C-alpha cells in the first residue's frame, strides 16, 4: 500500500468524506485522514476548508499525527488567522512538555505560523526555549528568533531577543553556536547598519572552536561569518588561517569554498615573504581541483569562483591546466567556463598543449562551444606572443574547413590579432578575402570590413570589396554600417584618387539616408573632418591604434577585490557585487579586502595585480581626438549669419558648415589672422589633377564668352568641368581662375541639368595652402531653371585660414543649393597668386640669390617653346613675373626674374634661352622650395598659351 491511495477520490466529494474521517473516534482513521489532507496539500489542492477539523486532531500524544497537523497548520494558518488562535494553547502547553523533541517541535512550528496574533503568544515560550537546558531546543529556538524577526522585527528588538541570541554565540554546544550565527547573519542581512555580529578576538576564538565540532552546515555559517572579520594584524590573520585550513579537506564542497574565501581574504594581510604564505598557496590548489571532479552543477559554481581566484592569484593554479580540459560530455555551461579559465592560465609553458586542445574543440558538435574555442585561439595569440604564429596557422587551418561559423569566428579573432601585431600576419589577408561571401554574421562582416579598410593599401581591389558591401548598406546591422563607413574613409585617405566617389556615396548614405544617430554623427564627423582638414583627418582616422590589452575581459581590480570577499556566493557566480542584483538589499555593505599590515610591508607586486582595463593604458591619441571633436562641435555653435559678410565670424573660418543653412554666413574679409604666413613643411610631390576630371561635356569647355583674358590680366585657362552633373544631382559646375588688376577671381559656370529649378546657391572653401577664400557670397540672382546656365565671377581673397594641402594648389570646394551640398576639389594655377609688386631691386636680387642656399635651387626644362627672350619676358610680365635683368652669355639669353606670392614668398628665377633650342632651362631659387614645382607649372602654362 502506498501513499498514492490518498489521491483517490470518491463520488460523494472528497472534502465531505475527509471531514467525516477527521472527526472519527479511531486514532488510526484520523491519522489516515490527516495524511490524505497533507497529500492533497502537497500537490497544490486547496484543503483549507478542513481547518477546524484538522486542528482538533492536534491534541494527541501520537507524535506523527501531531507533526502532520503542524505541517497543515503552517500551510494554512495565514489564510485562517482566527482559527489558528485555537492552536495557540496547545503550542504553549507543548513548550512545557518534558520531551525536548516536543518542546522543540512546538517552538519551531509556532515560528512558522506567520500570523501576528500568534507571534504575540510566541514570545514567552520562545524566551524559555532560548534558555532551555536541552541544546536541541536552544538551537531550534535560535532559528525561531530569525523567523520571528522576519515577521515582526520590532517585536524581536523590543523583547530583547537579539541580545539573547548574541549570548548564544558563547554557548557550550557548537550546534547552538552555529545556529545562532546563522540566525544573526540572516537578521543582519536586513539590517546592514546594525552591528549584530560584533566580532572580537574572543568571539572569534569561540567560533573557531565551534567550527571543528559542528555540522557541515554550521561550518558554512561560521566560515561565512569569519570572512567578515577584520583581523587586527598579520599574526592574527595567520592564526585564523591555520585553524581554517583543515576545512579544505571537507567532503562538503560548500564548506571547502567558504574556507577558500576566508583564506583568500586573510591572505591579503600576510606578507609574501612569509614561508606560511607559500604553504597556504600550495594548500589551496588541491581542494579547488577536487571540486572539479564533483557533479556538474557544483563544478559550474566552482569554476565561476576559480575564474575569480585565477585572476586574483594566478600562481595558485598555474600548474593545473589539465584539469580544465574539456570532456565531450560535460554540460555546455561547464565547457564554456573551463575554456575561459584555460585562457587565463595559458602561458608560454603550456601554450602548445592548450592550442592542441582548442583545435580539437573547434571540431566538436556544439556550435556555441566551437565558437568560443575558436575565439580562445585568438585570445591565446594575443596573450602569448610566442604562440601567435602557431595560433594564426591554426586559425587558417580552421578557415580551410569552410564550416561557416568557424570561418566567421576565425575572422573575428584574426582582426584582434592584427590589432595586437600590426604588419606581421598580413599575408593571410588573401585567404580571408576568399571567404568574404560566406560571411553572414554582423560581427564577422564588420571584422572583415575593418581588415580591408585597415590594410586597404595592400589589397588591390579594396575598393571593389568595400563597394560590394555598400550595395546592401541599408540592410546591414549598425555595427557593419559603422565599420563600413570608417573603412571607406580610411581607404579614401590612403587612395584618394580612385575612391572619391565611393567615399561620397558612403557619407551620403550615412548622413542622409540613415535614421541611426550614431551612424549619422560619425558620418558627419568624417565628412567635416575630410572637408575641413584632410591632413588632420588622416592623423585622426589613420592614427596609430592603442594596443589592445593582453588579457581580455578581466574584471576591474576593485570589483575583483570585492568579489573575492564574496567567494562562494551568488555574487561570485554572476561576477557582480550583490548590490547590483540582490533583491531589496537595503544598502548592502561593500566588502573590501583587508589592507596588508605587519612588519614587512610590501606593495602589491605587479604580477598579481591585473593590469588596468584598456581605457587606462590608451596612448595620447584619444585626447587629441577629443580636442578635435570639440572643435568640430564648436562649429555648430557659431550663429548663422546671413546677409552681408560679417567681420566677427568665428575663429574656425574656412570650415564648411555641413549642417546647411549658415553656409553663407561664415565667409568674410575679416576672417582669420593666421592667413598669409605660409609655413612650408617638407613634403613629397603628389599626383596632380585630383579633382578635375576632364572628358565629358567638352562643348561647354570652351565657352569663353566671359570677361576673361583682358589686357592687364594674367593668363586665364579655359574652363574645365569641376563637378559633373551626375555627381551633383544635376548641377554641373565648370570654371577657371583669373587674376585681374590685383584681384583674384573664380569664374564659374553653373548649369542646371536636372529637371527641377535650383536656387539658394552658396559656396564655401576648405582651408587651403594659401588661404584662398571667397571675398563675397555667391551671387546667383535668379533661380536656375532646368537646362539653363549662369556665369558668375566670384571674387576671392587670400586671407582665409591656411592649411597645407597635398598637392599644394589643391582647393576643396563645397557648393550648396536647395537640393543638396556637393563637394569637389580642383587645382588652381599658382600664377593667380603672383602679386603685382613682385619686382625686386637688382641689388636685392643679387643678395637674395646668394643668400638662398644652393640646395634650394631647382632646375626644370621647359620644352617646345619657340618664343624669343623678349617675347617671353613680356608674356611673363603679364602674369606678374618680372624680368629684372637680361644677359647674353655665350649666345644664350639669361633672364633673371622675380615674383612674389600673395603670402609674401619671393621666388627668384633664372631662365636660360638658347636661340636654336626650343627647350628652356629654368632655375628657381626660393626659401620655400616646395613651391618651385608649382611655379614651374605656372611658367609652362603661361609660356605655352
Amino acid at each position: 500500500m502506498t501513499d498514492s491511495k490518498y489521491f483517490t477520490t470518491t463520488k460523494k466529494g472528497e472534502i465531505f468524506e475527509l471531514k467525516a474521517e477527521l472527526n472519527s473516534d479511531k486514532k488510526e482513521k484520523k491519522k489516515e485522514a490527516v495524511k490524505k489532507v497533507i497529500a492533497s496539500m502537497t500537490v497544490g489542492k486547496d484543503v483549507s476548508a478542513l481547518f477546524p477539523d484538522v486542528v482538533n486532531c492536534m491534541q494527541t500524544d501520537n507524535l506523527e499525527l501531531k507533526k502532520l497537523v503542524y505541517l497543515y497548520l503552517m500551510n494554512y494558518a495565514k489564510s485562517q488567522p482566527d482559527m489558528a488562535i485555537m492552536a495557540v494553547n496547545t503550542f504553549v502547553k507543548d513548550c512545557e512538555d518534558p520531551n525536548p523533541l516536543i518542546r522543540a517541535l512546538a517552538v519551531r512550528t509556532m515560528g512558522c505560523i506567520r500570523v501576528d496574533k500568534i507571534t504575540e503568544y510566541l514570545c514567552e515560550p520562545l524566551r524559555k526555549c532560548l534558555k532551555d537546558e536541552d541544546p536541541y531546543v536552544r538551537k531550534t529556538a535560535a532559528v525561531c528568533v530569525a523567523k520571528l524577526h522576519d515577521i515582526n522585527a520590532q517585536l524581536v528588538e523590543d523583547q530583547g531577543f537579539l541580545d539573547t541570541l548574541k549570548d548564544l554565540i558563547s554557548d557550550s554546544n557548537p550546534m547552538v553556536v552555529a545556529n545562532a550565527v546563522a540566525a544573526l547573519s540572516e537578521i543582519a542581512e536586513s539590517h546592514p547598519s546594525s552591528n549584530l555580529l560584533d566580532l572580537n578576538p574572543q568571539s572569534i576564538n569561540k567560533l573557531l572552536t565551534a567550527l571543528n565540532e559542528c555540522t557541515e552546515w554550521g561550518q558554512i555559517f561560521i566560515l561565512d561569518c569569519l570572512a567578515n572579520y577584520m583581523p587586527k594584524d598579520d599574526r592574527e590573520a595567520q592564526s585564523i588561517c591555520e585553524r581554517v585550513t583543515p576545512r579544505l579537506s571537507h567532503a562538503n564542497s560548500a564548506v571547502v569554498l567558504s574556507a577558500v574565501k576566508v583564506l583568500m581574504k586573510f591572505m591579503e594581510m600576510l606578507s609574501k615573504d612569509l614561508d606560511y604564505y607559500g604553504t597556504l598557496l600550495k594548500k589551496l590548489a588541491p581542494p579547488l581541483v577536487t571540486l572539479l571532479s564533483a557533479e556538474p552543477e557544483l563544478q559550474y559554481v566552482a569554476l565561476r569562483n576559480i575564474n575569480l581566484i585565477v585572476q586574483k592569484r594566478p600562481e595558485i593554479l598555474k600548474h593545473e591546466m589539465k584539469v580544465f580540459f574539456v570532456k565531450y560530455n560535460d554540460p555546455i555551461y561547464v565547457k564554456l567556463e573551463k575554456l575561459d579559465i584555460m585562457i587565463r592560465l595559458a602561458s608560454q609553458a603550456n601554450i602548445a598543449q592548450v592550442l592542441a586542445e582548442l583545435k580539437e574543440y573547434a571540431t566538436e558538435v556544439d556550435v556555441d562551444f566551437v565558437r568560443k574555442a575558436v575565439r580562445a585561439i585568438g585570445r591565446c595569440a594575443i596573450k602569448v606572443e610566442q604562440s601567435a604564429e602557431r595560433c594564426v596557422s591554426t586559425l587558417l587551418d580552421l578557415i580551410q574547413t569552410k564550416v561557416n561559423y568557424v570561418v566567421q569566428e576565425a575572422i573575428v579573432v584574426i582582426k584582434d590579432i592584427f590589432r595586437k601585431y600590426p604588419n606581421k600576419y598580413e599575408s593571410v589577408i588573401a585567404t580571408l578575402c576568399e571567404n568574404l561571401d560566406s560571411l553572414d554574421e554582423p560581427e564577422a562582416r564588420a571584422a572583415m570590413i575593418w581588415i580591408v579598410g585597415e590594410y586597404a593599401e595592400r589589397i588591390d581591389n579594396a575598393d571593389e570589396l568595400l563597394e560590394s558591401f555598400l550595395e546592401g548598406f541599408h540592410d546591414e546591422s549598425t555595427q557593419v554600417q559603422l565599420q563600413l563607413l570608417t573603412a571607406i574613409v580610411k581607404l579614401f585617405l590612403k587612395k584618394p584618387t580612385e575612391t572619391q566617389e565611393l567615399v561620397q556615396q558612403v557619407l551620403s548614405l550615412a548622413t542622409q539616408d540613415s535614421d541611426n544617430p550614431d551612424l549619422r554623427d560619425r558620418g558627419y564627423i568624417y565628412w567635416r573632418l575630410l572637408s575641413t582638414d584632410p591632413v588632420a583627418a588622416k592623423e585622426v582616422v589613420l592614427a596609430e591604434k592603442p594596443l589592445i590589452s593582453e588579457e581580455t575581459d578581466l574584471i576591474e581590480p576593485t570589483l575583483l577585490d570585492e568579489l573575492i570577499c564574496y567567494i562562494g556566493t551568488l555574487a561570485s557566480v554572476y561576477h557582480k557585487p550583490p548590490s547590483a542584483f540582490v533583491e531589496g538589499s537595503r544598502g548592502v555593505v561593500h566588502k573590501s579586502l583587508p589592507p596588508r599590515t605587519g612588519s614587512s610591508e610590501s606593495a602589491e607586486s605587479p604580477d598579481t595585480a591585473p593590469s588596468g582595463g584598456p581605457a587606462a593604458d590608451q596612448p595620447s591619441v584619444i585626447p587629441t581626438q577629443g580636442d578635435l571633436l570639440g572643435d568640430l562641435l564648436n562649429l555648430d555653435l557659431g550663429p548663422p549669419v546671413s546677409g552681408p559678410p560679417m567681420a566677427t565670424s568665428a575663429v574656425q573660418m574656412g570650415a564648411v558648415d555641413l549642417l546647411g543653412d549658415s553656409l553663407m554666413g561664415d565667409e568674410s574679409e575679416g576672417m582669420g589672422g593666421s592667413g598669409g604666413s605660409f609655413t612650408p613643411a617638407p613634403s613629397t610631390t603628389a599626383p596632380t589633377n585630383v579633382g578635375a576630371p576632364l572628358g565629358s561635356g567638352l562643348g561647354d569647355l570652351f565657352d569663353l564668352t566671359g570677361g576673361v583674358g583682358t589686357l592687364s590680366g594674367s593668363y586665364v585657362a579655359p574652363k574645365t568641368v569641376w563637378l559633373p552633373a551626375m555627381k551633383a544631382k544635376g548641377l554641373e559646375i565648370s570654371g577657371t581662375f583669373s587674376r585681374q588688376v590685383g584681384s583674384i577671381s573664380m569664374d564659374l559656370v553653373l548649369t542646371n541639368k536636372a529637371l527641377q529649378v535650383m536656387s539658394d546657391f552658396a559656396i564655401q572653401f576648405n582651408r587651403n595652402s594659401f588661404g584662398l577664400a571667397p571675398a563675397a557670397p555667391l551671387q546667383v540672382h535668379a533661380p536656375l531653371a532646368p537646362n539653363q546656365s549662369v556665369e558668375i565671377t566670384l571674387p576671392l581673397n587670400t586671407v582665409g585660414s591656411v592649411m597645407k594641402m597635398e598637392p599644394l594648389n589643391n582647393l576643396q570646394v563645397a557648393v550648396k543649393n536647395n537640393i543638396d551640398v556637393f563637394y569637389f576639389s580642383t587645382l588652381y594655377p599658382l600664377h593667380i597668386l603672383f602679386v603685382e609688386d613682385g619686382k625686386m631691386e637688382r641689388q636685392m636680387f643679387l643678395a637674395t640669390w646668394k643668400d638662398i642656399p644652393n640646395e634650394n635651387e631647382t632646375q626644370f626644362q621647359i620644352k617646345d617653346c619657340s618664343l624669343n627672350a623678349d617675347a617671353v619676358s613680356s608674356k611673363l610680365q603679364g602674369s606678374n613675373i618680372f624680368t629684372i635683368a637680361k644677359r647674353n652669355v655665350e649666345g644664350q639669353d639669361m633672364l633673371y626674374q622675380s615674383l612674389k606670392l600673395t603670402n609674401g614668398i619671393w621666388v627668384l628665377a633664372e631662365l636660360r634661352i638658347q636661340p636654336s633650342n626650343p627647350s628652356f632651362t629654368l632655375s628657381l631659387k626660393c626659401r620655400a622650395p616646395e613651391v618651385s614645382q608649382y611655379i614651374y607649372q605656372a611658367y609652362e602654362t603661361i609660356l605655352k598659351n
Partner: protein
Amino acid sequence: MIHSLFLINASGDIFLEKHWKSVVSRSVCDYFFEAQERASEAENVPPVIPTPHHYLLSVYRHKIFFVAVIQSEVPPLFVIEFLHRVVDTFQDYFGVCSEVIIKDNVVVVYEVLEEMLDNGFPLATESNILKELIKPPTILRTVVNTITGSTNVGDQLPTGQLSVVPWRRTGVKYTNNEAYFDVIEEIDAIIDKSGSTITAEIQGVIDACVKLTGMPDLTLSFMNPRLLDDVSFHPCVRFKRWESERILSFIPPDGNFRLLSYHVSAQNLVAIPVYVKHNISFRDSSSLGRFEITVGPKQTMMPKSVLNMTLTPSQGTHVFDPVTKLLSWDVGKINPQKLPSLKGSVSLQAGTSKPDENPTINLQFKIQQLAISGLKVNRLDMYGEKYKPFKGIKYMTKAGKFQVRT
C-alpha cells in the same frame, strides 16, 4: 536561506512542492521552464537561474529536476549540496529515487523534507538521524503499524543529534560484527587520436560498510599514504592525527558511508590499463564509411548524419541507436590472446557532406582487485570494544570519464 523546493519531472510537471518559509507561487518555475526550453538537453539547463525576485538553483538527478528557490544571497554550493543530500536521502529511504516512488511516499517525503530544513536552515541531513526521526517505510513496518497502531515517527530525540559524534547513534548491537572497506578508483582520461594520454587523473573513494556493536574506534593505515595529498574526509575522521601520523582514526557511523575521497593527479599514474585502436573514416564522395575498433570500447557517439552502421563484432553485442546516434558495444571479458574488435561500414545520409566532427569513444571498464594508483591498506585496528570484528578490504578500478578521441 532556502525558501522552497519544487520537484519537476522531465515533461515539465511540478509534482511536489515544499515551502519552508512563506509560500512562493509555483509560477516562479516558469523561468525554469524557459531555461529548460532553451537548453538542448536536460543536462544543459544552467544550475543557477535568476528571476526578478528569486533565484532558482537546480540539480538534475534520476530524470527529476530538484529546483530550490532562494530569495537572498545564499552560497549556491550550500544549496546544491543540500539538494544532493535530498536526492541521497530519498535514495536511502526508498531504494530508488523516481517520480513514481516519491508520489507513492509523498507523506514520508514531506515529513523528511520538513525535518531536513527549518526556516531554510539545514536541521538534520544525516541519514542516520533522519531514519531515527522518521522510519523508512518497509513492508514489515507497515504491517506492524497497522496492527499495533504505532507510527513511523520516532518520538524520542535522536541520540546522535547533539553528541560529539552526531553521525553515530548509541546502543548499536550486532551479532556478527563486520567492517568492509571498498577502495574504488575511477580513471578520468582523455586519449587523443594517436593514443597518447592528454590528461589522466584518478578519483578514488573508500566506501565503508561498518556494522559494529557499541562505540568502536577504528584506525586504518596505508602502505603508501603519501599518495593521498588531496583528500576529503567524512566528518568522523580525526584530521589532526591524519596531519601528524598519516593514519585514519575515526569512530564510524553505523552502516554505509563514504570514509574519504581522494584525487591523484596524472604524475602518479603508471599506465592506462586499456588501449583502443580505432579507424573511423567518412568519405566525401560515397555515402559509405569504414569503421573499425579494437579492444574494450563500449560507447561511441556518431555524427548526426550517420544513418546506420553495419558492423560485426568479434565478440560481445553491439547496438546502434539511430535516434541518439549512439553506438554501444558491450565487449564482455577481454582475452589478451584474441583482442576483441568491431568492424564494418557506416552509411551516411545521402546528400549530406561528410560530418565535420569526429566521434568520441567513451570507455567503460572494471578491473577487480586493483587500485590503479597503487594505494594499499596496511592494517585496520579497533579500539574501545572487546570483540573481534570481521574485516575485509576490496579494491576496484573503473573507468570514470574515459574518452578516446578519434
